[in-house]
């Protein structure tokens, strides 16, 4: 039953922000149905997709995520009536912002996975993992975290000129 695990040189970290009512239950179903999906995905459970703030995505990238999955109930199925409708608009805007500052949108996947769609969860996670694996590590935000503070560069020509003029 178990497929032999293929060895890869790069294992991407995928953070999945999921809603507790649909996608979390869907992922649970995939598990209880013994479906195999990549273990690269770390699932974070939220009450609703409407609770997922864009700042969580920035934070995830800063802390080493290579790909992000945001998944919740299908439109019309929200436990809180309209949380996913609001999330849909918010993320439509946020992905435009990310694109504008130069983040590759292929690293972010949005999906609707209901509690009955264990198979779709496996499909979405596998596709995203393979896509991000092909793209390599997400270095942009991580590099920023490692960078020195802006005043670290004290040897620049402007300051030198000011120093000499003193």
């Amino acid at each position: 039953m178990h497929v032999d695990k293929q060895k890869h040189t790069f294992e991407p970290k995928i953070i999945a922000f999921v809603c507790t009512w649909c996608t979390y239950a869907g992922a649970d179903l995939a598990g209880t149905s013994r479906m195999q999906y990549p273990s690269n995905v770390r699932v974070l459970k939220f009450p609703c997709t409407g609770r997922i703030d864009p700042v969580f995505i920035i934070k995830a990238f800063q802390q080493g995520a290579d790909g992000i999955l945001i998944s919740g109930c299908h439109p019309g199925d929200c436990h809180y009536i309209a949380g996913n409708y609001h999330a849909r608009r918010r993320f439509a805007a946020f992905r435009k912002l990310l694109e504008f500052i130069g983040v590759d949108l292929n690293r972010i996947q949005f999906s609707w996975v209901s509690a009955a769609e264990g198979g779709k969860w496996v499909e979405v996670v596998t596709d995203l993992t393979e896509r991000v694996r092909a793209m390599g590590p997400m270095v942009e935000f991580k590099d920023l975290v490692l960078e020195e503070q802006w005043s670290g560069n004290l040897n620049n020509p402007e300051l030198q000129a000011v120093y000499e003029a003193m």
Partner: protein
Amino acid sequence: MTQTIDISSYSTITDAIRSEARRILSDSTVSAVIGYTAGRRKGSTQPIVITTADDADQLIFTAACLNDLVVYLTKAKKDVPKSGRIGIVVKGCDLKALVGLLGESQLKRENLYLIGIPCSGVLGSLLKPSAELTTETIASKCCECSDQLPVGCDFVPTVTPAPLPDLEKRYANEIARLEAMTPSERWEFWKEQFSKCIKCYACRQVCPFCFCEQCLCDRNRPQMVEQTPRPSGNTAWHLVRAMHLAGRCAGCAECERVCPMDIPLNLLNRKMAKELKELFNSEAGFEVRDTGPLTSYREDDDQSFIR
């Protein structure tokens, strides 16, 4: 080619503001008027709150009247008396911010007396406050302004602003230039811009829409945005800022003007405004809206990006 912009109407506007302020203060229509007065440097201006009719002669309007005075009406600022009706001098762009605040239930229209300015444009910066208003020195926001005449004010001086000459659409051009780049080039551009940030939060302080009692970026349990002026926290701050203003920003461009490090902050705001116009056909205007584009939804919104 540099061309002078006709602002001859500004002296008439100054006289009209003064007499109107004197009238509404002496008959107790308002308890205070927020306007502009001459600054200490020649040609510069600064905001002033006047409470007696005698002070009305201090009010002026020139091309150096850059401030968006609406910020003084928000909860975040405590300098203006909160009792009674307040008179305020607004340009078209400031009025859009005020209308946005009305829509967000931050202000009540009946507590305000709006003195609208038929605006022909203001300077881009106060570095040379007595500079002549030309197609070079005019503020970038004015180049794309289509609302010279404010709508729905209590008093507007009866002058017709001279139509603006054909101006280079600086924001639209810059957005187009960035959009044509590859993602990594754009990242490099913004990385350089954001790394200049010193986290002085002047952009937050001057923004009419940043009226939260406690900003998300000041909270540290959990800390969502790093507070030190380092590149990663700076990037997060500017993304959060752009996102929180998306669908609300009225385009007064004060953030960009006050930025001591010259980060093109309004570029992000204009980009978001453009996208929200395209996505949800929603933009800031003179009509009070109960909900903004990101606080409402339609069942048939585009979801082509969602699997």
